[in-house]
């Protein structure tokens, strides 16, 4: 049986405001428990919400970036349910009338093709607090610092057909919200979270299968694994003659499995209704155009420009524009080097990315700045460094041993380009290896490599290889 996977994602992006969506408490991460929970966040009797302008501005910015409609009038609603991390017993969200309506993004796949993924809507809502289970027996501790942090919930159409597409989409949205500077995208701290709606259907079928909602997926890697696990589970259920049950399942990354969430077993009846404490949000045309003026160059536009201006392939351009910081780094590098876009691209995607990955670091944390790397590339271009030496210098730069020139100087890594010096070394080697010399001269051409090796050994690899070749040819060939 051929099965087709259908995936839709709900992404929660914490907005980068200073204060909360409905209160004037700080949104900073990592404070001591409940020290950033004010009366409004705690749901104290009598307190009231007032909407943060910046949160609205950020939602509009996102809407414009995905070509979506901005609702001239949207409404906040209460989603009612009891949970200890939800202080009021309801979450203020948007239900029937969200601030951002239909839009879309384009994702690039590994095979070079691209697909358009629809965005159903994006709405503003408040985040919940956190339940902590460690350190107490049979008890949970509630920290409400996070309660009231603004969230933009971005809901996709069920347009993705594989776990890989889901990851590509999630990465795309991740890149976008960081470009827009509306979310820091920190998955570990939970500022960017994802729930996946997964179902399967027989290939060729138009009707959707019963879906399950996967929660708690906090990395790109886990999104793929969780979906793959869930798809296989659903296939097993159906092929085993069973039926997929519509339910919310929790992804356990340690066991790599999904399981039903006990807290969601009871049928949801959220009793949404318009929040009487908040009035309809009206967004004027002038507000939207003000926000439009602040839109930065977006990933797709930047990619096109990189292809045009730097002569890069679509693949390279997409990689380099995946994050705004990486693209900025690249452009700064090209500028500092004074051109040589391809060499710069190779180094950023090669040596630099490898080092970052290995150390699990982000481009902004790179110990090698664009200016430092430019210093290195310049020494390649002027012949001071061979490719091999350049890698050695890069390692030293990474280790914080100083600028390229200083490292070259200190380690004596400078390429030997003085012909008379190389000639002198060759003469010595010829004298020391009379047998090999005569064999070569007798026609054993293969021994040329032996002499190159000897020269490199003697110069610790610093001799300019091209010069070594030329001089060796001349000297070995000359009968004296």
């Amino acid at each position: 049986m051929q099965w087709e996977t259908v995936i839709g994602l709900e992404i929660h992006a914490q907005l980068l405001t200073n204060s909360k969506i409905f209160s004037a408490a700080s949104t900073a991460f990592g404070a001591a428990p409940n020290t950033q929970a004010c009366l409004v966040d705690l749901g104290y009797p009598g307190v009231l919400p007032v909407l943060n302008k910046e949160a609205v501005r950020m939602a509009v910015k996102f809407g414009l970036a995905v070509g979506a409609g901005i609702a001239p009038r949207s409404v906040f609603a209460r989603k009612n349910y009891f949970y200890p991390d939800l202080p009021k017993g309801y979450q203020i969200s948007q239900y029937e009338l969200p601030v951002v309506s239909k839009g879309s993004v384009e994702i690039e796949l590994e095979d070079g093709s691209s697909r358009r993924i629809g965005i159903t809507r994006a709405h503003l809502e408040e985040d919940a607090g956190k339940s902590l289970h460690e350190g107490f027996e049979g008890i949970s501790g509630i920290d409400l610092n996070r309660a009231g942090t603004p969230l933009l919930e971005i809901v996709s159409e069920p347009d993705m057909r594989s776990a890989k597409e889901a990851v590509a989409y999630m990465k795309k949205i991740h890149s976008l919200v960081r470009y827009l500077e509306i979310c820091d995208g920190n998955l570990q701290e939970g500022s960017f979270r994802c729930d996946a709606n997964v179902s399967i259907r027989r290939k060729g079928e138009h009707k959707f299968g019963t879906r399950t909602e996967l929660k708690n997926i906090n990395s790109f890697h886990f999104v793929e694994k969780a979906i793959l696990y869930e798809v296989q589970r659903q296939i097993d259920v159906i092929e085993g003659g069973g039926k997929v049950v519509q339910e919310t399942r929790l992804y356990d990354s340690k066991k790599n499995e999904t399981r039903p969430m006990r807290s969601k077993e009871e049928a949801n009846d959220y009793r949404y209704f318009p929040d009487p404490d908040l009035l309809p949000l009206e967004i004027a045309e002038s507000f939207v155009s003000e926000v439009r003026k602040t839109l930065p160059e977006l990933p797709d536009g930047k990619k096109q420009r990189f292809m045009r201006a730097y002569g890069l392939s679509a693949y390279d351009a997409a990689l380099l524009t995946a994050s705004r910081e990486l693209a900025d780094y690249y452009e700064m590098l090209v500028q500092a080097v004074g051109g040589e876009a391809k060499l710069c691209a190779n180094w950023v995607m090669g040596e630099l990315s490898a080092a970052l990955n290995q150390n699990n670091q982000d481009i902004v944390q790179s110990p090698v700045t664009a200016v430092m790397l430019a210093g290195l590339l310049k020494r390649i271009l002027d012949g001071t460094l061979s490719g091999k030496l350049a890698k050695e210098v890069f390692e030293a730069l990474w280790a914080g041993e100083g600028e390229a020139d200083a490292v070259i100087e200190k380690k004596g890594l400078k390429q030997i380009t003085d012909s008379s010096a190389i000639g002198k070394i060759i003469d010595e080697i010829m004298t020391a290896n009379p047998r090999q010399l005569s064999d070569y001269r007798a026609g054993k051409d293969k021994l040329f490599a032996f002499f190159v090796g000897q020269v490199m050994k003697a110069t610790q690899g610093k001799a300019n290889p091209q010069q070594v070749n030329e001089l060796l040819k001349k000297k070995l060939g000359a009968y004296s």
Partner: protein
Amino acid sequence: MHTKTLTELARDLKARKLSSEELTRSYLTRIERFNPQLNAFITVLQEEALAAARAADARIKCADANALTGLPLAHKDIFCTAGVKTSCGSKMLDNFVSPYDATVVERFRQAGMVLLGKTNMDEFAMGSSNETSFYGPVKNPWDPTRVPGGSSGGSAAAVAARLAPAATGTDTGGSIRQPAALTGLTGIKPTYGRVSRYGMIAFASSLDQAGVITYTAEDAALLLGAMAGFDPRDSTSVDRPVPDYTAELERPLKGLRIGLPKEFFDPGLDGRVGAAVHAALTIYKKLGAEVRDISLPNFWLSVPTYYVVAPAECSSNLSRFDGVRFGHRCESPVDLLDLYTRSRGEGFGAEVKRRIMTGTYVLSAGYYDAYYLKAQKTRTLIRQDFITAFENVDVIMGPSTPTPAFGLGEKTGDPITMYLNDIYANGVNLAGLPGISIPMGFVDKLPVGLQIIGNYFDETRLLSAAHQYQRETDWHRQIPRGFE
């Protein structure tokens, strides 16, 4: 001095005929003497009140006073008051000490008013008789076997018995106007959004509005001027200048167009109350007003609409009382569900539970459209009736309640009978209009009230109409026997 109006006391304080401390002591003494038989106060702030009075006297001495400095008042126990127990009449909040002041409390505090204490009320303002309070029923000073009305029954009884010269109240469906009517006082519910709701424990957010219960319209004007106005902490607060209500009290009534809705004179109305309304209208005509018969064709929808909208909002507003961060928590909960259900089951009384369940039901899947959405639409019809009426009249008049005060326990058996006591009040809240009840006579030796409904933000006209009626009558000067 307790027989004087707030305005008269203000003059005496200003003229230094009287100190705030003397005045405060005199009310505290009366509270000590009469409160046990009335149960009007939940908390009396003896020490704090005297300290505030002395501070007010100091302000008056160094000419740092305004019209309200040094005047005592009482707050309904629904207003959060920093450092003071704020119970909302519920076991749920019996142990709750508010860490902050409601905007209304803050404004009166800043003006230098002296807080005597917190008054009894129906639990979470849900009731029309003050019988749903965790602290027991309040007695009507005019007849201790009768209710003072509700939910601001403690405020009404305290002012009627001259235990305080004025008190705040809140009105979600008549909770200021009805008790004011049943105790012979003046009670105003301003336009929705006129007074900040911040710090006022919410019952039904789209209906709740704070106001005052006083002897006279003149007193109400004085207090409303200080409590009204924009508050950035309340999204539904209206940013609009507050008129000088006191200065406008004498504005002539000549040509005032009074609308008299025929629907108010239905079989449920005690004929003697209806007659009192007509007697009051005679006085208005004498003052130069003109009475026009009008119709509010959707009036019959107001109570059923109210009993969908208010419970729906309350069911959600009261979800925050879960035994986690404040309020009552049950003993040794076995799990989360047990913590929630028992804390709430024990903390809330029967009427509150009834309304939470009604509200939960009308919002739940499958019933939302039939009940909640329908009521939102009938609410539009009710508001539209008023808007249409105000195209031809300046104010609408009628009875505040269908009958005078009923007996304690008389209506507790049947919620619907109780709800119908606010039949003339509910529609005003649904539309968000201002309304005032003023004493207009007695039926069976019990006071009854005239309700005047105004157009949006037309409190000025309501107060001047009420004030000029009070210059022609002395119903508002009557003091219940035993409290003279």
